[in-house]
């Protein structure tokens, strides 16, 4: 156990900090769930990419920086400390990129990865379907081979910011007689292809954060297939493991929120203390953010030692999603009657964050599913 950053890590931190100080935009962007805001965020992400900070953990020759996970943690700490903009290319960097690196042909890699790293292509997900929420194996959208193409019909839903993306990766049933995890194929689909209709879905905050995507005889060339036909589940799951989950929710995000919560409490302590539970909730929220950080560093160190990681993806999901609710609920308790004001300067971010936090326990496998996974796969309890 050595809790000192190496000179190289310290130098990396200094470099990140200097670059961010010089480049983080002063004026806040519009919400990235609007077209204007999406474009602002995309340009910022492209700028990050130019400095090697966007797809940080990708290999250098693919547009990344080849950073290890400690550098990633350091980068996130500096990034969130600066209140820098939300990241808009996570689908491309964390979900699409690693899958392409593992399963893509050399031609596919050359065609897609640099453009993804530079934010020239922005990716939407095509997993969920109206009748297949947490049960992804129930996918029924079809991709039937017809010569050099697949003909895609069906419907995808809950595709984050798909209204603004230009490509989609997803799973489709290529064998119409198959069941569950079998007979699925992983395809890359340009969203301007004929036969595609994108219907935005407004989220809790009124923004068009998701979309429903309808496929009507959409012809997708076979060279847009990632991995073998019928092997889509394997392709999608191979990189769905722990590291992706880790990168999705960096601890620095919650530490920054916890820090602001402590500041908010200090500012309003006289009124907040009339509710005797608030100070306990503030303590608990800070402890949670710190515990999540420590667990992340601990996991990263174990990964570096080659220890295989099991249930951490599920425990992490439960932990950060409940922490995020606690952080924002506590802030709104402190704000009291003002907490409902949409346009109030002090309230705004807490309220938006509170609405966003509602999704945490639901998406990417609901917390009920995660608890089942822990009990069955880690603790060996029988399936029902």
């Amino acid at each position, binding site marked *: 156990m050595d809790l000192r950053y190496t000179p190289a890590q310290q130098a990396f931190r200094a470099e990140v900090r200097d670059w961010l100080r010089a480049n983080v935009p002063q004026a806040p962007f519009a919400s990235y769930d609007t077209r204007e805001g999406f474009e602002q965020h995309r340009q910022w992400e492209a700028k990050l990419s130019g400095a090697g900070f966007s797809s940080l953990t990708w290999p250098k020759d693919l547009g990344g920086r080849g950073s290890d996970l400690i550098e990633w943690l350091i980068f996130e700490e500096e990034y969130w400390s600066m209140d820098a903009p939300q990241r808009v290319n996570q689908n491309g960097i964390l979900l699409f990129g690693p899958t392409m690196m593992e399963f893509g042909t050399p031609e596919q890699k050359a065609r897609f990865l640099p453009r993804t790293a530079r934010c020239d292509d922005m990716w939407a997900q095509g997993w*969920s379907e109206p*009748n297949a*929420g*947490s*049960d992804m194996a*129930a996918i029924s959208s079809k991709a039937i081979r017809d010569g050099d193409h697949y003909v895609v019909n069906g419907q995808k*839903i*809950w595709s984050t910011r798909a209204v603004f993306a230009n490509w989609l990766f997803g799973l489709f049933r290529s064998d119409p007689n198959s069941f569950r995890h079998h007979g699925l194929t992983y395809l890359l689909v340009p969203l301007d292809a004929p036969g595609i209709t994108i219907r935005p*879905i*407004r*989220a*809790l905050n*009124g923004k068009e954060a*998701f979309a429903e995507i309808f496929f009507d005889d959409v012809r997708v060339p076979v060279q847009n297939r990632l991995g073998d036909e019928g092997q889509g589940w394997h392709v999608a799951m191979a990189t769905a493991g722990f590291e992706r989950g880790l990168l999705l929710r960096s601890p620095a995000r919650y530490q920054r929120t916890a820090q602001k919560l402590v500041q908010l409490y200090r500012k309003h302590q006289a*009124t*907040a203390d*009339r*509710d*005797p*539970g*608030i100070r306990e909730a503030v303590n608990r929220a800070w402890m949670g953010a710190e515990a999540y950080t420590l667990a992340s560093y601990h996991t990263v160190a174990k990964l570096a030692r080659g220890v295989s990681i099991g249930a951490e993806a599920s425990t992490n999901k439960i932990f950060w999603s409940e922490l995020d609710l606690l952080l924002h609920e506590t802030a*709104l*308790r402190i704000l*009291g*009657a*003002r*907490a*409902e*004001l*949409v*346009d*109030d300067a002090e309230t705004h971010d807490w*309220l938006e964050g509170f*609405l966003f936090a*509602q*999704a945490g*326990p*639901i*998406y990417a496998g*609901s*917390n*009920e599913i995660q*608890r089942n996974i822990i009990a069955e796969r880690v603790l060996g309890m029988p399936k029902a």
Partner: protein
Amino acid sequence: MEFTFTQDQMAFRDSVSRFLMTEAPPELLREVWDTDAGRSPELRRKIAEQGLTGLSVPEAEGGLGLGDIDWALMTQELGYYAIPDSLTDTAYVAAGILAGLPESHAARAQWLPRIVDGSARIAVGHPVNPWVADAHLTDLLLLPHATSAGLELHAVPASAVQVHTERSIDASRRLCSVQWQAGDATRIADEAAGQLLWDEALERGALCVAGQLVGLAQHMLDMTVDYAGQRKQFGKPIGAFQAVKHHLADVFTAIEFAKPVLYRAAAALATKDASTSARIAHAKLVCGEAALLAAHKGIQVHGAMGYTWEVDLQMFMKRAWALNAAWGDRAFHQERLSAALLADKAPLGPGATFH
């Protein structure tokens, strides 16, 4: 000793419920959300026709002469259908203030009949609320003016105030900051009488919100039960999963144990019981918790659907989140409750519930 409602009261509640189910469906609520004024004069007219606006106006002034206990049922229905604030502020809180004036007071004759016939909206500016709800389209404002001896009560015509409206997460709420000038012409009660009226208005406002919160909780539970019975995952309705069952059972239990607290608080207010402020604090806290729990479990069971704008759940969740801090936030009511519990010789133990 009979701690429940009469058959007449229950029948009245049922008729209000049927009326609102027909006349105030979620589609109407969506319309209200999308308009600037945010209110439906048509709905208000129908409500007045039912006699609901005159519920607690004395019979001598044309109303039904009912009271807080009846409103404990009524507010649950108003909460269930998320009826916007102007109705309760006018017909319950403002009516209560005006009916508390001396019988000969001119303001009674001027305004109480208009509450009954639905032709007047009255906004109430209690100091516990940082803003005045619905001040932008009211006919009259009841406003406090602080002196060293207490709070005077002023009745201010809408034409004499300047209003700025704030947006709430609950788009059916219209929160206004109000600029106005207190004067002899507007004063309708002095500090001594006014303070008593404002104190009672606080209790009535908090109770009114508590009732609506438990109604909101019930509606969110009902929507969630419906969804859980229909939506299938892994080949069966999600309501067959034990985790979902337990979410629903927890909400049901919270509601069942909040309602009697609400009723006891209403009875305390109606009889000016010494325990009123503690009982209303208790009701506000547990009704708010039931609503927050119903929202939390509701969205969890609805999954991604519950996170969308198009599924009605969101309107009820947001109203619950907003009302939870209206007429005194949790801190305010926790402090009132603590003060009552920790007082010397506080009547706390067995046998003190109805004394």
